[in-house]
């Protein structure tokens, strides 16, 4: 089910908890699926002793992927025309993240109605880990 132009207005928001107590195993699962086996995401010994970080941390793309799930649940499948983010803070194991969409504009483009959306994902302490934008085609 896709979002309908007749049912959405500027200022509308939608949010979802996209992970609860993020596990190292889910980070490993993402490494295996995406093919990004950077030890910074799964190898505690390398990450703390060689790279100098306090712990392994999630791929930025895992946070973007989980945030994308909130977006597709909101706008519908196959509706996105754009999705872009900045990774504003690292996400460590144990994180609980909430992703939020805010409709900022509704416009016409080549005969389609497009919603522009601000995207923000924050952790349990309110620190923003993803800041981005998306655009999606709306159904009539």
């Amino acid at each position, binding site marked *: 089910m896709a979002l309908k132009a007749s049912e959405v207005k500027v200022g509308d928001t939608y949010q979802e908890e996209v992970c609860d107590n993020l596990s190292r195993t889910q980070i490993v699962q993402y490494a295996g*699926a*995406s093919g990004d086996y950077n030890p910074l995401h799964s190898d505690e010994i390398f990450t703390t002793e060689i790279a100098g970080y306090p712990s392994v941390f999630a791929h930025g*793309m895992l946070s973007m*992927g989980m945030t994308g799930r909130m977006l597709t649940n909101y706008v519908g*499948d196959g509706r996105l025309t754009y999705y872009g983010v900045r*990774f504003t803070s690292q996400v460590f194991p144990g994180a609980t993240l909430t992703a939020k969409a805010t409709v900022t504009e509704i416009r016409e483009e080549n005969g389609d109605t497009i919603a522009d959306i601000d995207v923000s994902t924050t952790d349990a302490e309110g620190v923003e880990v993803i800041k981005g934008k998306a655009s999606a085609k709306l159904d009539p």
Partner: protein
Amino acid sequence: MAVDKFPVESGHVMMFARSIGDANEIYYDEDYAKSTDQGAIIAPPTFVQSSAQFDPDYFLRPKIGEEWFGSAKGPTGITKKKEGGGGGGGGGLHAEQHYVYHRPLTVGDVLTAENKPGKSWEKEGRRGGKLMFNETVTEYRDQNGELVITATGVGVRTERPATSGDK
């Protein structure tokens, strides 16, 4: 990532969707997907990142018969001293990612990926130390040569490890 052949396969899409915690049936159930307006299993919006699996030279995957920089007997598997060496370890961090979707990506598509160099710039980090940003634009085209997704990635290299909140 430059890739000659990236077949979008249903098992891969299912595993990718699981890894981002997405239970949407359109990513694994063919019968359900056929009943939707998409008409087939589609890929999640960030799926093309996994084109790394089809890049023979992708540097963040252990290669058969080669040393790997993650831990093994010691904290790193690299036994030979290399010139230079990266500051943050692992070749820098991902700062931004943008996708422009020209159409939904569908199981059965066979993509190619071509890289175009983007901008480079420098910034002073909040806790001191230079941050070096580098942009790469990747065009994903289908079996008919049609553009499906344009991806723009921005990587950052740091002079010292970027601890949480230091970006």
